[in-house]
């Protein structure tokens, strides 16, 4: 190309050098990723030096034994419950805060508290409150019919609910704060024009507010979806996947297989299956998000 000499050509390519360290650090993930794939086809174990190639055995066992379906069921029920409640509650809180009442403004600085607490720490805190002997929760909820020694995570019927409760407590603020930012981003003029045009509050919500909030909703959806599918800290901290295998989602299962049963190969295969699912869903979600964004323009 005319007009570019060596010096400026270097200046053009120079930036690659700035990018390299970042890429190099991230090679960090490609090497273990490759190893994961390798291990998933072996019977690698923490207690044996022998590593034998076993082909697709791990995968076949995973799907064949029904373990995959169990993990999938736990993972996705957790995910959908969490998404539903967090969006519902987050929306409500965002709306309430958007009213800019005195109370809302005073409380806002504390909104992010649960989010600031490490998931494992938060889980421990809830565990303390859920202890059946001295549970303050049982006390507060007794008027609603909760028995005195309600076991929360100790029972297989309510373990999922307990875990979801902790997740909702922890991450609803995330959704609330982003929705609030979205609501504040809607020019009041649009809503005024709508009411001048005679639209009811519900209609203007449906036709104006909701579409404008879509990009924010999708972003929350993507982040929360990924995080809840991969949820480890809360479930591990609560019951390590129990009681029995009630709360075994993909990651906790993989951890247990790899570090409790020492089956590295099996654990790796579980993780790869999960990663594939996440990747595909994300890919489509983001595609949809990009399309939405263009339409909004």
């Amino acid at each position: 190309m005319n007009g570019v000499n060596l010096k400026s050509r270097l200046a053009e390519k120079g930036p690659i050098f700035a990018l390299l360290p970042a890429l190099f650090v991230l090679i960090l993930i490609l090497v273990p990723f490759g190893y994961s794939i390798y291990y998933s086809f072996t019977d690698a174990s923490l207690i044996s030096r022998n590593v034998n190639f076993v082909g697709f055995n791990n995968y076949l066992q995973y799907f064949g034994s029904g373990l995959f379906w169990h993990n999938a069921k736990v993972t996705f029920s957790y995910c959908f419950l969490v998404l539903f409640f967090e969006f519902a509650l987050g929306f409500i809180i965002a709306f309430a805060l958007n009213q800019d009442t005195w109370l809302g403004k005073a409380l806002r600085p504390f909104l992010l508290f649960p989010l600031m607490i490490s998931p494992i720490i938060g889980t421990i805190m809830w565990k303390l409150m859920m202890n059946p002997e001295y549970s303050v929760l049982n006390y507060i909820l007794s008027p609603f019919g909760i028995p005195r020694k309600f076991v929360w995570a100790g029972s297989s019927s309510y373990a999922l609910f307990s875990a979801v409760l902790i997740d909702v407590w922890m991450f609803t603020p995330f959704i609330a704060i982003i929705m609030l930012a979205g609501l504040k981003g809607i020019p009041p003029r649009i809503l005024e024009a709508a009411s001048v045009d005679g639209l009811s509050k519900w209609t203007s919500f449906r036709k104006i507010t909701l579409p404008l909030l879509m990009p924010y909703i999708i972003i929350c959806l993507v982040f929360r979806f990924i995080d809840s599918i991969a949820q480890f800290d809360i479930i591990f901290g609560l019951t390590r996947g129990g009681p029995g295998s009630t709360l075994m989602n993909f990651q906790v299962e993989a951890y247990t297989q790899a570090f409790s049963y020492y089956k590295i190969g099996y654990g790796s295969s579980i993780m790869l299956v999960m990663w594939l699912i996440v990747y595909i869903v994300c890919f489509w979600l983001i595609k949809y998000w990009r399309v939405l964004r263009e339409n909004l323009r």
Partner: protein
Amino acid sequence: MNKRKKIGKNIFVNLSTSIVLILSFSFLLFPVYWILTMALKTNPDILTYPPKFFFQPTIKGFQYILGLAKIVGATGVSAGVESWFLVGIKNSIIVVVSTVLISLAVGLPAAYVLARYKLKGKEDIAFTILSFRFAPPLLVIIPLYLLFSKIGLYNTYISLIWVYQLISLPMIVWIVRGYMEEIPIEIEQAGMVDGYSRTWIFFRLVLPLAKSGIAAATLLAFIYCWNNFIFGMILAAVYVQPVTVQATRYLTPDAIMFREIAAICIGAALPLLILSIFLQRYLISGLSMGAIKR
């Protein structure tokens, strides 16, 4: 609508808003409050039902986790208690601060390149960097555990700092890049016309103008790293593990040391809680900007 209806409507809106806020914030903040009080109660006050809302406070819990307490063994000999909490805090600080500093050193130039330069496949590179955030941690931890053990990096600060890059680097690159794209390129061109080098332009024009984005990204990265549990649990042992892992050290299957556990929870959470109040602005802008700017 007529005035009476309007006032009535307003009262209804205000009332329901207040009810919603009181209920939801009670839900969000009660656990923190309760655990704080638990950390300050005497054991009899904790191990009782109905739970006590009024009590005489004691600092024994905090003394214990800070290693300032003495326990009397079965033989009547008193011994000091090691403070896992302080070990954890020290480790957290070392690992997280180093991680974030390295992420900044590596990520800021990368963000600039991604913001400014026309490269083939630039968006793909950017997406790839972001996609690392989506990988389930265990996917890399299992092989890394074996790898690190083999090359002697198990239970070292370096291994944690390196692995933590996985969560802090993408965040910094992604958020800062968004802010940098907002800076008009003409300002940099003015710098070139004035005779300045690209390096000067980067440090004296771009970085200062992206200041708030950098602050927000740094804060978020710090929080994410500080709160991380799984890397430290698996890839390190006692004396390297951050405070999040140390907190689980008290969860013995036999006697539950309610107060001490509560105290360490408060201790582990307190730094970020206080930070969040003072740096609200950056937090919120980082969270929403990171979300919007894609």
